[in-house]
């Protein structure tokens, strides 16, 4: 039994088929990378999983139960944490307070009190490398640090599945290395990860499997190195002519 199963999920916005029947599964302990050109439906897919959107068709199963159409907060408490591509911190709070919010609300089971949640935040901030900046107001953080904070807030929920939406976009080479290190640490702590990424180095570096979305459909799925060499994937990104020229 897989941890998360997406079955034939579709989502329309007016005349646009953002998702047109996507199917895949995520096993416990896996790291799945989702890639695809702009507008392929990657973020829509995450929004469907985390409950911000309700799929028009298909089913999303968490272990044995369907979570399709559940309110986002209920999905969160089942153990699914996520980050946003365009970061969404709580701007008037400090780094530590932002992180504590995840521990305060996202935990399944026993409720933490604010004090305990702050202690939990301190532990998580050390994992993502923000420990020394815990008392900063969010607005003082740089872009890479704000992305780390997104991860920290989700991790504080102690999720079993973490959905990362382009946490490395806009980072330089050194920062990507640090972020990769962070993702590996999270994986080693037993969290299953689904990540959307445009940086291929990340996909090849940490993912066990990669899935390519194009026009709301699954184009190719398999080991990252093979997927990236697939002619259909090159076509999707760079056009048919480029793919033809490559083969000559």
């Amino acid at each position: 039994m897989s941890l998360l199963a997406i079955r034939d999920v579709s989502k329309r916005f007016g005349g646009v088929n953002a998702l047109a029947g996507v199917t895949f599964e995520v096993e416990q302990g896996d790291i799945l990378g989702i890639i695809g050109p702009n507008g392929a439906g990657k973020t829509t897919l995450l929004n469907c999983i985390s409950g911000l959107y309700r799929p028009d068709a298909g089913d999303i199963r968490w272990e044995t139960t369907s979570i399709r159409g559940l309110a986002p907060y209920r999905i969160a408490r089942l153990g699914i944490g996520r980050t946003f591509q365009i970061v969404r911190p709580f701007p008037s709070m400090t780094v530590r307070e932002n992180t504590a919010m995840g521990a305060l609300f996202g935990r399944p089971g026993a409720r933490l009190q604010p004090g305990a949640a702050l202690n939990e935040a301190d532990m998580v901030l050390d994992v993502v490398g923000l420990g020394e900046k815990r008392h900063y107001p969010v607005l003082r953080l740089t872009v890479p640090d704000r992305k780390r904070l997104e991860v920290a807030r989700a991790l504080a929920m102690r999720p079993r599945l973490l959905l990362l939406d382009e946490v490395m976009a806009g980072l330089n080479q050194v920062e990507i290395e640090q972020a990769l290190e962070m993702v590996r640490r999270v994986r080693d702590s037993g969290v299953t990860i689904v990540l959307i990424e445009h940086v291929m180095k990340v996909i090849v570096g940490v993912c066990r499997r990669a899935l390519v979305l194009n026009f709301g459909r699954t184009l190719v799925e398999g080991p990252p190195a093979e997927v990236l060499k697939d002619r259909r994937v090159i076509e999707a990104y760079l056009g048919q002519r480029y793919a033809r020229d490559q083969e000559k």
Partner: protein
Amino acid sequence: MSVRRATYLVAGLALAFLVLAPLTSIDAAQQAGLPLLTDKLWFRIATTVAMFVVMASAWNIIGGLTGYASFGNVAFFGLGAYTAGVVVTNLNLPFALALVLAPLVAAAFAVIVGIPLLRLRGHYFAVATLGVGVAVGEVVNNIEPLGAATGLFLPIIRSDLLFFYLMLGAALLAVLTTWVILRTRFGYGLLAIRENEEAAAVIGVNTTFYKVAAFCIAAALTGIAGAIFAQWNSFINQDNAFAISDNVQMILMAVIGGTGTVLGPVAGAISLELIIQTLAGGGSGSVFSQIGLGVLLAVCVIFIPRGVIDFFGGRSRLSLRYFRQTLRETSV
């Protein structure tokens, strides 16, 4: 340190209020001709200030902490007032019962309108709640058992002191409620919703429940103020129980004082009500007082966006530098 100083300051003010106000009824004070204390008007103003402390603090819970600017809170005030009217006049039951029923009626109404309206955001929510505020007043104005356009008369209870203390009690309750909320998980949930609602939802905040609950608490507190007002004034109609200007006023007080804080709405209610009384010269609604208020609000929003509470407790000092800095913040 700063918070403690602010707390002492307000506690001191409240204590002074408690001690000084009853003096006004003591003959000795009146014979001695102490300024203010001989004046019956002073009592009225003090009670009105306390009433607006309740309304501004209650508004702050939904508008300041949760970030949903309600222009319909006056409906809760009116419903509280009319609940008291019905209990005391139509049903001939004691006023004490009205004090219990009024918040319940207002809170129940908040659930009914809150569930559909709290799905709206920003100015859509503001306009929708404004509609509710006006509509409820109009409906009440057309119900015969509620006195329709004539209004409702309550048996007069002559005791300035009683109503002053009732309002003061309600004001303390409102402030205490805000203080408690800000120290609990519930309060953090409200702040998260204000700061970024979708982010709050995906970390596990039950946003719909939290928003409706905050609306309910605000409604209950406002309803209590309405009930006390009804008995105090002994006459209620659409104009005084469902006055949109009251709704605007409670928002101004919360904003000028400092939204999202415990004591901001208190500071705002006290300072603004005193300014209004001064501008109006005891009467109300003169053109000049309206213009004065408008200018004041514009200046406050531009130059002291965090409210006058920002100057208490040593966080900021009133200076040109402060104004230059806030001007940069507010003019994006």
